[in-house]
């Protein structure tokens, strides 16, 4: 202890000795800064404000910054995409429906505008997809690899007609190719009920057989099974000239055994057979449980069976054999079955853009169109219709358009003109009472994309690739999506601003004054808040009509309640503080206390609330437009929810629409939430709590 003290004492003694006398003599004393004015030096660093501080904290949270920048990009896109993407989305163009997204060229199916088409009915004659009758059209030149690119598949089908078409073909109709019967086949029906001694059996059916076949390679007979005793009773069907059905009758003798069981049997060798409208009657009563075709188990023929034999007559079954081995049935009612039938289907990769933008021959252009092309300088002005053409309903063929019509594309026309060549001219003249109607048109080859450009559907005169494809009306989905996003964002921002304004004012008043004012105002918010928002929105929109402003009103009606209650809580917290008391003592008015002293404390919370409210509003709008597209869809503008709701209808056939829409929606929501959370943490670090 002593040692330590000594050590401590020593340095003090030394220093005092070094410094010498504590007070210097007077003449040694100098005023160093006597003539200098001394002020506090300014801080070199800039003072931080509340917002700068918050911004600094915000920048530290990487995810929020990333979210904010993605959000910025999306917002900019929603503003600029509708401006710069000049493809027309206000009109529908059926020719451009459902184009898949195209980003690249020839990447074998990955976003290159092609799609793999499966199970399209192939016309066995041409080897190409069957056309007509409402079937989807596939152009040969747009099939990747042409005719050789089609992988065909033969499948043997036994099912109901609807199931067959559903699983084996996409669109159009089903082409059924019967295979040839190689060997003899025998088919027997289940037991015919109620065929007792004395009753009469009538069999009638439609069949695709030559009369000469009956009895040779095709027989129909009745098999009688009476215990061990089996006998065959021959039925000779005769074609009824009026109905076209084959008919056979058999009267069961009175003396025959009553325990005998009868079955209808038919056997055949070679040839293809078509049987329909089978009707088995006993004493005029339909033996409906005998569905003859059910017993066909071999793979070799096809037969149509009906749930109720009587429900079909031959006329209901339409068979077209324009192509010898291709059959088509259409039904007016009931369920039709297809039995053991070979269906030829093909799968291939199809370039939808090639199919849409290719040339189309035999297209009719009006004379006015061509005059317009001449006016635009696309067709040389030497163009003239044939003089002295005899009026006719038929097309007047043109072999050399240049010599006969003076038709020639100019340099500009080579780029822009929708009509590429003329192959025919149509001229009709109708003389009515006192008036003459003339019409003139030209048949030629149309370049589709040039025509789309001419009619204003696409923005540039070249085969355009749509970034996100097109929707059911042939509109550019990319533009549609982002203009919808813009509408939704506008709605979100406006609604948030209004909601926050109302909420802050309401909450401040309620919180500041307290007491009965508070009680009354709280009850009002409770009533408004208690109403389900979807109901309130619907009511407003139904009452006032559906447009942007009513939607805004509906969203603002209850949206402010959340803000108001947080603001109210803030006021309860701060109104008793000393600085408020001080300000009040100095004579500050209520308004000044509210808006200058207490409210600024809650500014961070309010800003955060705004950032988190925007996605909420977008979400509400999307949900309600999604749920009630008929009642609540925007008139005129398209919102995000409406766009998504439209896409939802085509979820199974054209999933890329709903996928791209949903992904954008999800990104917007995630980014807004991350951004909002970042803001909350930045403005109110104490709230971060557990996240620290």
């Amino acid at each position, binding site marked *: 202890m002593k040692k330590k003290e000594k050590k401590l004492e020593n340095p003090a003694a030394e220093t005092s000795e070094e410094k010498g006398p504590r007070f210097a003599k007077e003449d040694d004393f100098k005023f160093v800064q006597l003539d200098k004015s001394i002020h506090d030096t300014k801080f070199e660093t800039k003072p931080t404000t509340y917002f700068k501080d918050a911004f600094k904290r915000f920048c530290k949270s990487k995810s929020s910054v990333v979210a904010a920048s993605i959000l910025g990009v999306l917002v900019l896109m929603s503003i600029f995409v509708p401006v710069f993407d000049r493809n027309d989305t206000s009109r529908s163009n059926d020719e451009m429906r459902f184009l898949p997204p195209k980003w690249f060229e020839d990447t074998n199916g990955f976003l290159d505008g092609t799609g793999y088409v499966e199970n399209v009915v192939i016309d066995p004659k041409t080897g190409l997809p069957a056309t007509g009758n409402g079937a989807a059209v596939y152009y040969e030149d747009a099939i990747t690899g042409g005719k050789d690119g089609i992988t065909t598949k033969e499948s043997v089908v036994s099912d109901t007609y609807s199931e067959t078409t559903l699983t084996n073909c996409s669109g159009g109709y089903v082409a059924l190719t019967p295979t040839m019967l190689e060997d003899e086949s025998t088919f027997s029906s289940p037991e015919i009920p109620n065929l007792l001694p004395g009753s009469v059996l009538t069999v009638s059916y439609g069949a695709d057989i030559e009369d000469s076949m009956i009895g040779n390679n095709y027989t129909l007979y009745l098999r009688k099974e009476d215990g061990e005793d089996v006998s065959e009773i021959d039925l000779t069907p005769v074609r009824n000239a009026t109905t076209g059905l084959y008919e056979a009758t058999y009267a069961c003798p009175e003396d025959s055994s009553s325990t005998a069981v009868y079955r209808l049997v038919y056997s055949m060798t070679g040839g293809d057979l078509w049987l329909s409208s089978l009707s088995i009657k006993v004493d005029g009563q339909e033996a409906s449980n005998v569905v003859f075709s059910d017993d066909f188990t071999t793979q070799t023929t096809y037969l149509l069976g009906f749930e109720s034999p009587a429900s079909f007559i031959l006329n209901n079954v339409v068979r077209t054999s324009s192509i010898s081995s291709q059959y088509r049935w259409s039904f007016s009612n009931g369920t039709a079955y297809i039995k053991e039938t070979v269906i030829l289907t093909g799968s291939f990769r199809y370039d939808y853009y090639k199919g849409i933008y290719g040339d189309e021959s035999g297209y009719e252009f009006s004379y006015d169109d061509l005059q317009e092309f001449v006016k635009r300088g696309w067709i040389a002005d030497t163009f003239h219709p044939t003089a002295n053409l005899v009026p006719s309903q038929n097309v007047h063929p043109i072999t050399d358009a240049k010599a006969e019509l003076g038709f020639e594309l100019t340099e500009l026309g080579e780029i822009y003109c929708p009509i590429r060549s003329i192959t025919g001219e149509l001229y009709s003249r109708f003389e009515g009472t006192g008036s003459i109607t003339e019409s003139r048109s030209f048949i030629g080859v149309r370049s589709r994309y040039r025509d789309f450009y001419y009619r204003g559907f696409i923005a540039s005169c070249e085969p355009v690739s749509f970034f996100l494809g097109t929707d059911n009306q042939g509109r550019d989905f990319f533009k549609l999506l982002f203009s919808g996003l813009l509408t939704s964002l506008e709605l979100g921002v406006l609604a948030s601003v209004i909601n926050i304004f109302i909420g802050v004012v309401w909450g401040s008043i309620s919180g500041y004054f307290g007491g009965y004012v508070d009680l009354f105002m709280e009850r009002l918010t409770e009533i408004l808040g208690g109403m389900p928002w979807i109901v309130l929105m619907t009511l407003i929109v139904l009452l006032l009509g559906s447009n942007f402003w009513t939607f805004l009103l509906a969203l603002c009606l209850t949206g402010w309640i959340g803000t108001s209650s947080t603001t109210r809580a803030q006021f309860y917290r701060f109104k008793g503080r000393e600085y408020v008391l001080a300000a009040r003592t100095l004579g500050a008015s209520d308004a000044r206390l509210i808006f200058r002293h207490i409210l600024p404390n809650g500014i961070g919370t309010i800003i955060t609330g705004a950032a988190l409210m925007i996605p909420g509003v977008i979400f509400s709008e999307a949900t309600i437009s999604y749920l009630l597209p008929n009642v609540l869809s925007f008139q005129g503008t398209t919102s995000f929810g409406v766009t998504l709701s439209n896409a939802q209808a085509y979820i199974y056939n054209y999933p890329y629409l709903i*996928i791209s829409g949903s992904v954008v*929606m999800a990104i917007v929501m995630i980014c807004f939430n991350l951004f909002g959370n970042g803001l909350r943490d930045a403005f109110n670090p104490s709230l971060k709590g557990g996240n620290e």
Partner: protein
Amino acid sequence: MWKYVLKRVGLIILTAFIILSISYILIQLLPIAPPEGGAAVQISFFDQQVDLGYFRRLTAIEVNAGAVVDFQVVDSGGTTYYYQAVPVMERYITWLGNVFTRWDWGTSTAISVNRDAMEIILERLPVTIELNVISIVISTPLGIAIGIWAALKKNKPTDTIISTLIMIFISVPSFVLISFMLLWLTYYNRWLPQTWPSSMAVANDPTLYFKGLIIPVSALSFGSIAGFARYTRAELCEVMNSEFLLLARTKGLTKARSITNHALRNSMVPIVPMIIAQFISILSGSMVLEQLYSIPGTGQLFVNALNSRDYSVVMVDMAMYTVIGLFATLLVDLSYGVVDPRIRMGAR
């Protein structure tokens, strides 16, 4: 306590009354849509309305004298029936009388013509409640467990992954989720039925019932699982930072024991009321799901009723949602007191 509850229930009844009154008057201001169908259906509808006091039948003499005719129906015999709507406020009084004295909420005009609206709702309610109960039963323990797991692995890769997933599931709207599930599970892979299986189909194949539940239950659960997990994680993290837990560890408790006995109990305080809140939000959130998966519940009924302007059904459905919502807020408030005895009911 009981005084507080009674006071609150009284307030709820008052609030519900005001809400429903406002809604009724607003709805009655909309153009009335008579039922679709033949003259017989319309006449029986209007006659019922006359009996209930919402319409007045006019005679030809009155019509000739210049009375305003809102609807006229010509029956098969060629007789014309004239009906005049009673003024809105009068209708409102009559409606109140009908509801209070006869529990008559009006008849449907489109969903199932001339049937009691209340009956229709009660018929649809079990499916909705069933789905909600199943999803809440599944999502509550799962969400809390995930939240606990994330909190225990705080700031580790597990926590980051869980937090990101939670963020995604909270942000993505339910219809997006349902659309993707429909595409993936029912269309590309035909594992599950494309729509809610009918009771007939279920009777034939009982497994179909469970298959049919998968999409709706998961669609409803994902959001609430994420909600529970986020809340639990935040709460537990906060409690784990607190001093009493430090004390618990200092006095020698193991980490596991300190968490189960001290941290978890305290973090449950805001979670329990949240279960009730989630139940309500699921109930109203199932509208989209019921529409997309064709589930014959009250949500789908509400949307269909709005689309076909069947206002009686809308009114009853709305009343149900309102009352459930109001009682839920009461339950939430009461549950705070039950879970945490420090919170006194009705204290200022």
